[in-house]
């Protein structure tokens, strides 16, 4: 199989932080219009891997391909220009600044010498808030400072920002952490919408129920390596759970929607499947 059959492909990626090898010869790919679920323990290297795909970190070795072409000198602006948008685990927001500034951070609407079209950016933000975020309350406007908003609202801004910029690949790094059940549902339906519009998605989560509901394929990482690759049609949720236990070997309950001993009700989200 050549690199042409994938939207994005990473070959033999290694990454060190100081002397710790966080990624060990990782091979990873996303097909056109494929939803890939990426799961694994805390510290497995999931976020590091997607930060290499998005140009935040440089890999110490390995190659990246985009639509069959090798990527040289990867960087965040380049990734954004190619058509990769990311909702980072830390949300990547600036809290002392208004919503409209956050939406266009790093990709401002400017004239040829770099002056920002503030009016346009605010109008676009207002539209985005109405149409996508579903903010109808008048207390939140494009001028609202992020620091004055709730965690769910901030995540809403981060996700809407990803929606605003037209992309071929949408990367979501644990987008549901800290969200209420209804907010989580919104995020999952958003992933389904990505699928329906013909785009690709990498969806990182701790929650197998979430990822099983939307993914075409599930990739499992453990201590810097890819240790599992399952296509959805071929495996049931029960089998997947069992496999996960074997692979990680720790019996870590986190993969199954249980956090710190407290069972999160999977029933709210396709738990009956």
């Amino acid at each position, binding site marked *: 199989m050549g690199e042409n059959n994938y939207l994005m492909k990473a070959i033999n990626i290694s990454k060190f932080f100081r002397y710790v090898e966080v990624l060990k010869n990782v091979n990873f790919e996303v097909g056109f219009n494929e939803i890939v679920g990426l799961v694994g323990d805390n510290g497995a290297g999931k976020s590091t891997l997607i930060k290499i795909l998005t140009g935040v970190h440089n890999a110490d070795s390995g190659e990246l391909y985009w639509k069959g072409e090798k990527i040289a000198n990867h960087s965040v602006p380049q990734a954004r220009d190619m058509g990769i948008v990311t909702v980072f685990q830390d949300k990547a927001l600036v809290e002392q*600044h208004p919503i409209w500034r956050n939406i266009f*951070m790093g*990709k401002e609407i*400017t004239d040829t010498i770099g002056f*920002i079209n503030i009016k346009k950016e605010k109008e676009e933000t207002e539209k985005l808030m109405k149409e996508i975020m579903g903010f109808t309350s008048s207390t939140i406007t494009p001028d609202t400072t992020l620091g004055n908003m709730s965690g769910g609202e901030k995540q809403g801004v981060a996700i809407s920002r990803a929606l605003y910029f037209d992309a071929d690949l949408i990367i979501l790094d644990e987008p549901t952490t800290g969200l209420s059940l209804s907010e989580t549902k919104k995020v999952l339906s958003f992933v389904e919408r990505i699928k329906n519009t013909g785009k690709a998605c990498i969806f990182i989560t701790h929650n197998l129920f979430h990822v099983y509901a939307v993914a075409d394929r599930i990739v499992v990482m453990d201590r810097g390596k890819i240790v599992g690759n399952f296509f959805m049609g071929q495996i049931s949720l029960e089998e997947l759970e069992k496999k996960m236990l074997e692979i990680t070997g720790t019996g870590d309950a986190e993969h199954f929607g249980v956090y710190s001993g407290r069972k999160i009700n999977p029933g709210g989200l396709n738990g009956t499947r």
Partner: protein
Amino acid sequence: MKLRIEFFNKYKISIGVTSVFLILMSIFIIANPSVFLNYRAYMAVFTTLGASIILAATMVFVVASGELDLSFPSVIGFSAWIFAVIVKSGVSPFIAFLVALFLGSIVGFLNGILVTKVQLSSLVSTLGMNFLIRGLIMILTDGIAIPLPFLRDTLFHTIFAGRIGQLPIQMLWSIGYAVICWLIFNRHRFGGHVCYIGDNVTSAREMGVRVERVKIATFVLMGFSSAFAGVMLTLINNSFWPTTGEGYLLLILAAVFLGGTPTWGGIGTIFGAIIGAFILGFIETGIVASGLTGFYKQFFYGLILILALISHRYAGLKRK
């Protein structure tokens, strides 16, 4: 009514610091009308205020990016010295000015490299740079001044230190410079990136802000403005002193923080810094006019600096 409240909230800092300025001037005028109702007092302040405005406006970029530059007093002296030496050798002051601006920017670039690539704390590394450069000036000049009386009748002097009517032309240069700073800080992508870096450097990087490049650029700007100020100060008396710039450290920091730019980075106000520079300029004159010695100047600058930082805590400015 709602609109008016919103206006007040948005411009709270500007309104606050401008009020402080107006109250202060009223006190000065009431306490010493013979000095403060005479335009000469204002013209005297305006002669040196030009340099302060340029420095304070530029320092807002550095502070908003989450860094500090304490090397600028020596960069002022260094650039003034370069300018003096070149002019003295018979070269055109315009060329000397360009060389001074260039070398000032180079020092800023070095500061930027130390902070980004070598990852030193800007607070300590620029303080070190301040002593290093001042020491260098003292060694190379033997602490001796360079008089440049022949500058007085040059076109260069008319352009950069002349008067329009009674108004010192430095004020026009510095206000023009400050307006450009305001536009870049508030309306240009660069100003936005500076603030995002100071607010949350990881977020900025993840969204594609070229963190190191932007930080280096703010230090280069600071070096450039220091050189500009250094030449302006030299033109006031047409003489270079090895101590040129030394009195500006506390003055500029106080102007920036009094103006409403918080120490923790992420936001800033150019307008506030300019008003801050005005306030401190007039306080200096006020101290002199009321017959107090120069010791009081230091005392008041330090006091103002601390009061300004305290006021940030209570002005609804929130640390993230």
